[in-house]
């Protein structure tokens, strides 16, 4: 290595081309900004595609018919478009799933953060992560081919496709979401609140139910709402296990059709662009999008409104 004498400094070393560096920086910043803007474009794209086809749909089918028809037969000769048939199925399955996920997820979260030793925690958290990472089509297999036959052994009038086993397995699928988000909320409740409760003579359970859980309430409720939103938008389990038979009613033993199952049914059948079936697809998509959006916004609002701050 040669040492340059100070009298003849190398141009590139001692007089860096600042204009060039700044130019490169500006270009890179613009490219990165454009990449960041992809998220805005995605949202606009989703809203635009959903709106465009839905408006065409609503020009042919009046809104009140969409909301009040008692049947859902858009692919038949006599077409009826009662979205409530699909919504009722989605709601019923989501309710079953949250009835499973709320006690399981919440108790698991309490167990992980309050009862489990650090070593136990280290084992159990990855198990929950594995449960969360199982692809939904696998849960669909499990619901249709394992859980339904199992339930049929003591519920003989349960049909091969039904919302009960779809809802139960969906509940198992969203349990890790409830557990890990609630656990974050419970774990972040400061220790001094627990100590204060113990000092007043409460037992461990009383501390948890009357001090820790209320303090973590905003996080817990928002985790439940996010889980419901996930359940409403879930596709594979309900398509495989709940069937494709649009029926209005709240009987969990018979086949039903959810909004997501309808979307799969139509896209599998190669809907012709511009046909009423193709537009119905997007009308159902819009309904689904609005429901999940409302749930997500409500969850954000709830956290913001009811978060307890301890500093």
């Amino acid at each position, binding site marked *: 290595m040669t040492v340059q004498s100070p009298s003849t400094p190398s141009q590139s070393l001692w007089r*860096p081309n600042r204009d060039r560096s700044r130019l490169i*920086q500006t270009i*890179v*910043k613009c490219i*990165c*900004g454009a*990449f*960041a*803007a*992809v*998220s805005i474009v*995605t*949202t606009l*794209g*989703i809203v635009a*595609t*959903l709106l*465009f086809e839905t408006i065409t749909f609503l020009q042919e089918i009046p809104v009140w018919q969409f909301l009040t028809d008692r049947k859902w037969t858009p692919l038949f000769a006599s077409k009826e478009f009662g979205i409530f048939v699909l919504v009722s199925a989605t709601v019923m399955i989501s309710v079953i799933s949250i009835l499973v996920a709320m006690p*399981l997820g919440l*108790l698991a979260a309490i*167990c992980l953060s309050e009862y489990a030793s650090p070593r136990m925690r280290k084992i*159990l958290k990855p*198990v929950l992560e*594995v*449960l969360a*990472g*199982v*692809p*939904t*089509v*696998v849960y*669909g*297999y*499990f619901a249709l*081919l*394992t859980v339904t036959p199992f339930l049929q052994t003591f519920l003989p009038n349960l049909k091969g496709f039904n919302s009960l086993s779809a809802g139960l397995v969906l509940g*198992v699928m969203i349990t890790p979401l409830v*557990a890990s988000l609630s656990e974050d909320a419970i774990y972040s409740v400061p220790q001094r609140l627990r100590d204060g409760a113990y000092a007043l003579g409460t*037992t461990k*359970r*009383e501390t*948890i*139910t009357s001090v820790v859980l209320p303090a973590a309430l905003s996080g817990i409720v928002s985790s439940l709402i996010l889980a419901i939103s*996930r359940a*409403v938008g879930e*596709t*594979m389990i309900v398509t*495989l296990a709940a069937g494709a038979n649009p029926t209005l009613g709240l009987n969990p033993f018979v086949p039903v059709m959810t909004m997501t199952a309808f*979307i*799969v049914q139509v*896209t*599998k059948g190669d809907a012709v*662009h511009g046909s009423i079936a193709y537009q119905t697809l*997007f009308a159902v*998509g819009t309904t*689904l999008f609005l429901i*999940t*959006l409302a749930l*997500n916004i409500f969850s*954000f609002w709830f956290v913001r409104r009811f978060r307890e701050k301890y500093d």
Partner: protein
Amino acid sequence: MNINDTSPSDRPINIELFKPNLAKRYNLDRIFAFMAWGATTIAVAILAWLLFTILVDGIGTLNWNFIDSFASRKAERAGIKAALAGTLWVMGVVAVFSFPIGVGAGIFLEEFSEDNWFTRLVEINISNLAGVPSIIYGLLGLAAFVRVFGFGRSVLAGGLTLVLLILPVIIVSTREALRTVPDGIRAAGFALGATRWQVIWHHILPAAMPGILTGMILSLSRAIGETAPLLAIGAASFIAFKPDSVFSDFTVLPIQIYDWVGRPKKEFHDLAASGIIVLMSVLLLMNAGAIYLRNRFQQNR
């Protein structure tokens, strides 16, 4: 105010209130602890049940022929060659597009951005997009990539749909990785006269790379398991050839599994279970890789 008004002796005292009744409360405590452990045990047991059923159902038909055969109407000759190749092609497209876009957006938000309307808009969008159901992305892909851009039901259309789906996850994990790089490195770089980009490129990115890659692998493993958006763009389930370009038709493992589960015959259900074993093994390997990277990264700090 007369102090005697509030003296305890003036009021009748409800003695019951001060009985600690400890025996009953401790019993309730035990029941509660039992329920908490019970719930956790149930969750673990269900996972074990699921894995066990799939292993029992699928291990019988899992052999080299299964990996190396195309789809067939006869169960004993059907395999996942096309689906496996399709999954690899789609993942290639997803990796090529989502890595630069996700990491670039993460860098912009974490390193370049000032607090202005654009940044805030992007952040609101990212948190909202994370809550959009995956099948809605499928509808977007169907309308945008399949029809408007005219890619058809190709590898490219499927890959780009999944890119949009996992971008929010990659951006968030990239930002977290960048945040773990100490500010001292940035300050030192600026003090030597480097531009912000030079500091990022030569110092911050290399330091944050293991974290970024971990997030990338986890996002890819999520994309591999996705079925709904690819069904929505109309990916075929019966394909008897490997894709030869990004514009050819394709099927992927989850769709092949979905197709087999939906058939009435028991033989196809077992094939589905074998397919699930392959899929879950791939996911497990990727997750192990991510955990390995994360641990090595933590040791180095």
